[in-house]
């Protein structure tokens, strides 16, 4: 613990260099001398040095990063691994039979009989990875992806599980992954928000703003929500103010604030507020440009499905194009939601009762646009510096719910994947048992998954921390191991 610095000093205002050292680690000799002082922490925290006037200025990672930016594709509602990426041929044989020794009651109620995967699987690409027909476009990309089939969550309830996936805590009130990343690294583009969350056209995800909240980190690291159809709020002035009046008001405000600053020199907070209005003015210019798809070619629009007769698919496809435009302009962290809140599975992937009927519709919305997005990033060379993560909060049971045609929540074994910068291509890591009840081979937690994301960004998850209520808080709490098997 470095107690010689104040909280404010340590966390924000201090202009001293990084407290810790970078990746080199601690050598044996240095270690012994540190031990002698009895000051050793297992991992000395690294609290990024944030200048309040430019909180999003780029900051160096802990060690050489493989990825500069991140795109997280977040499928809300818990996508069934059994209908997508986790092929369970045994389940076909067991179709209609009870699971021997299985639970009588799961999250939503009594368990029914085992049910075969609802879609056919076939080998894909060079690796021959078995992927279902539910997602034919995404299935073509499997050679590029690293699948983790053995993930586990701490909770089987959507809200807490989305919290856990996005913040590393099942509780409300912890900083989101995007907030941690922008706190650590700032952003390459000072005219746009560093962290953007693009909401699904059907609505907000279950845990809503927790997924992009700053928790106890400063508010500047909160995700800015927008979508292709809903721009940033208050980007233009309300109530019929003319551009000339607006400009005059901006000038007068600057004038008054600068006179005030002259009387209070060396007050960083005052200077930062003046700077924030200048940043806001730059955002007013840059946001409409990034949000407009007018300069996209007909070929691109068609490839993404942006002009599909299904309005939800078209709107989601436009969000996908927006995601690419943001990444292209150096936005550090883009979170793209597919699916909204729990709604009997109507608006997201929560297929409790009519799984196949609903998944047919949901997959139509997800599949082509996201596949086009990844290909587009690749073609523009952006996949070399962008990490793409596909995730969902947990998986689903191999049996149907009693009296229903859908699967209940299963936090004990599910699949997420990554592709892009620093990710090993065409690998499948970990496994669930032969029926997909739970992870049995290389069992991993979402702590590990998040630790791996930070690692690819050049961040040591054990050292990226923030002191809050007496705890050196981390995204991965006191857990997490980088999943080295999926690194390039």
């Amino acid at each position, binding site marked *: 613990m470095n107690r010689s610095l104040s909280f404010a000093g340590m966390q924000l205002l201090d202009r001293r260099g990084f407290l810790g050292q970078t990746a080199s680690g601690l050598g044996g000799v240095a270690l012994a001398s540190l031990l002698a002082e009895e000051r050793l922490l297992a991992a000395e925290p690294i609290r990024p040095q944030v200048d309040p006037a430019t909180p999003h200025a780029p900051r160096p990672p802990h060690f050489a990063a493989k990825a500069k930016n991140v795109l997280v594709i977040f499928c809300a509602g818990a996508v069934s691994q059994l209908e997508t990426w986790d092929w369970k041929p045994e389940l076909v044989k067991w179709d209609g039979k009870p699971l021997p020794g299985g639970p009588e009651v799961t999250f939503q109620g009594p368990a029914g009989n085992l049910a075969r995967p609802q879609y056919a699987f076939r080998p894909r690409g060079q690796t021959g990875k078995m992927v279902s027909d539910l997602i034919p476009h995404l299935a073509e990309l499997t050679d590029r992806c690293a699948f983790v089939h053995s993930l586990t969550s701490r909770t089987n309830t959507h809200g807490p599980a989305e919290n856990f996936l996005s913040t590393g805590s099942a509780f409300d009130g912890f900083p989101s992954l995007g907030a941690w990343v922008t706190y650590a690294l700032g952003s390459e583009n000072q005219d746009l928000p560093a962290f953007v969350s693009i909401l699904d056209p059907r609505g907000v995800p279950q845990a809503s703003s927790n997924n992009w909240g700053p928790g106890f980190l400063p508010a500047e690291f909160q995700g800015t929500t927008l979508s292709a159809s809903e721009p940033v709020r208050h980007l233009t002035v309300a109530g019929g103010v003319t551009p000339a009046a607006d400009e005059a008001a901006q000038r007068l405000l600057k004038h008054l604030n600068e006179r005030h600053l002259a009387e209070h020199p060396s007050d960083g907070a005052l200077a930062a507020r003046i700077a924030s209005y200048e940043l*806001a003015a730059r955002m007013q210019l840059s946001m409409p440009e990034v949000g407009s798809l007018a300069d996209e070619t007909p070929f691109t629009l068609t490839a993404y499905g942006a002009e599909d007769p299904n309005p939800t698919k078209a709107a989601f496809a436009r969000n996908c194009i927006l995601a690419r435009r943001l990444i292209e302009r150096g936005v550090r962290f883009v979170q793209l939601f597919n699916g909204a809140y729990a709604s009997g599975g109507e608006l997201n992937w929560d297929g409790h009762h009519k799984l196949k009927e609903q998944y047919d519709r949901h997959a139509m919305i997800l599949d082509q646009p996201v596949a086009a997005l990844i290909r587009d990033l690749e073609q523009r060379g952006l996949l070399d510096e962008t990490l793409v993560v596909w995730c969902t909060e947990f998986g689903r049971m191999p049996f149907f719910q009693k009296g229903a045609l859908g699967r209940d929540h299963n936090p004990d074994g599910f699949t997420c994947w990554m592709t892009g910068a620093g990710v090993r291509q065409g690998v499948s890591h970990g496994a669930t048992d032969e029926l997909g009840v739970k992870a049995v081979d290389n069992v991993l937690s979402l702590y590990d998954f998040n630790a791996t994301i930070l690692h690819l960004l050049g961040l040591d998850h054990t050292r990226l921390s923030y002191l809050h209520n007496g705890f050196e808080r981390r995204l991965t709490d006191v857990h997490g191991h980088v999943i080295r098997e999926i690194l390039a």
Partner: protein
Amino acid sequence: MVAAAEGPPEFVRDIQPLLVQHCYPCHAGEAAESGLRLDIKSEAFRGGDGHGPAIVPGEPMASPLVRFARGDEPGFEMPPLEAEVPSLNDAERALLTAWVAAGADWPDGVDTATLVDRRDHWAFRRVSRPAVPVVSESDWPRGPIDAFILARLEASGLSPSPEADRRTWIRRVTLDLTGLPPTIEEVQAFVADAADGAHERVVDRLLASPRYGERYAQHWLDTVRYADTHGYEVNTERANAWPYRDWVIAALNADLSYDRFVREQLVGDAYGLDEATGFLVTAAVLLPGQIGADDASKRLARQEALSDIIINVSDTFLGLSVGCARCHDHKFDPVSQRDYYTLQAFLSGVRYEERPFFSPAAEEARERVQELTPRVEALAKELAAIEEAAKGNEAPAEPPPRVAELEAEKQRLTQQINAETARTMVFAGSFHEPDVVRLLHRGDPEQPGEELLPRSLSAFDQQLTPVALSSNASEQTRRLALADWITHPAHPLTSRVIVNRIWQWHFGTGLVESASDFGRNGTLPSHPELLDWLADWFVADGWSLKRLHREIVLSATYRQASEPVSQAAVASDADCRLLWRFPPRRLEAEAIRDSMLAVSGRLNLEMGGRGFDLFGSRGGLSGFPPIETFGPEGRRRMIYAHKIRMEKESVFGAFDCPDAGQTLARRRRSTTPIQALNLFNSPFTIDEAHAFADRVTADVAAVTAESDSEGNHDRSEQLVRRAFEVALTRLPDEEEQAAAEGVVHEHGLAMLCRVLLNTNEFLFLP
């Protein structure tokens, strides 16, 4: 290092270097991973969380140290790959095994560290009143506070700043104590008050104002993470939580003594104050039906709901983070896992649910329901009779007017009954037979251990008589006993923690910066003697918060100017921990919104009751569309807004409004372009700018109508002067006047008003 010598391995020569290289990176010093330290003999033999003794002499294959180092235990291979620490080679493993087999001889006195007594910590010692220090600049202090502050400044070679002018001080103290700016008339009256005691009169007026309770209640609600929705999964409306919010405001306005304030929040039901126990259930919670149907999910949800109560009690009142001891002994503080569960046993009968409310207002509401119900029943009968009579009739094209009249009355009364019925319920502590509390291995309800009974934290047994109850102690007895223990005048934390919070709310930073963590991982006090003097004085004086405020805001320390005049001080203490000036700071979201309304003349001062809406939904899943324009109800003080957990208000939320997810010791003050967009462009700002302009125009018209019979000539000079007076409680200088008049001429007064509401001067506590 591996050169094996003759005979059995020797600890210092063969084993300790091996531990240093391979184990100490994670298992030495304070941050011992999994509670295991291998740099101290007793700790090494005791072992870490959940694996028992790490070393069993003579039995290497039963010693986790050996098994893990040899990789015999899947999932616990040590050192883990992740740690980037070299693994032991075969020779080293053999050495370690041989050493344990030979009896694990670890001589005394060779450890690289010594175990400190974690109970020996400044904040856990009893409070005693230190002598007020003697200072050189002896005419500066106005009281003991100033003497302590000045002594520390002098010791650092610094001196205090000059006193702020009266305009600045009254603006500061008014914003600070009420969350609203002073009026220009209040400023002028104070500036002109040459008689003795002018400052005291201002402070007494402000503390007597109901606005004080509204302001300081907001600080308290931050600390306890109050909200009007349940959070989590579906974030549904918590419709009747607000009586707790109103109780906090009323308690502060009445200057309820702090020990009583604490006691009522823990056990208000014993005093006929059910609503005060809303404190116990402020956390987010999963309601029945939102939890999995399986028993394990239910047990986990229950344990988490209880943990949140423990966290609220310990963080808020004791400034001690006990929550982590649910899963393992506290890493820094003398709080064992056992302590955690004995504390939980005081509170294990508390449940989160709406329940009948017993208060005079609720009784009145019940009576009204009883009065109104027969009338509605009579109306229903009458309507049924008319319908019956009409049945035989062939051609009643329209119902007789009488029916419409009766229907309307019935509907009106039914609505009234529903509203009154809502007032008979409250979301506050609901008390049941206490759950049996067991020590849970790793905090997991599926791994219960021995049963534990209510007992006060053992680390304080020297300072306070321990409180221990038997298993048959009733639910309320348990909470009463806990309240007795926490509010004991000799409790070393309770008084220190609250005087520090009050100090923080005045100066922006506490004497202890980590206001909810006085433990060993918290920060040390900048002025330990002052903290103790205040704590001791506060208790001796009868725990009065208002007298504490008065002592602070009338001090010379608080009266200092905020301009950073001394470069030496800026260089050596930029954070102003030593208080060589008053540290200015940006107002909080609520104070900004309230102040804008105060200036526009549209602030609605109606107090209490059900919260007004900032969103189109009061809870639930389908999102929270923000309301952008407001009527009079929406122009109440923001503390009366219906607070949606985890959802930030669309304009002011960006100003670091807490989300009520976790207890919050201290608000952050970030600066973002989103704040600028919101405050400069939102419909709220533009609406209030217009109202502000109308108000200024009316003010000027009223004055000029008296003095200027010609009328109708250009009044922009007066308009600009008045707008500055109202917003900033000062007149513009020449240059400002000219620039502002230019904007008023070209673009109208509302544009100037919009600018003033965005100035740093308007938004900062000066």
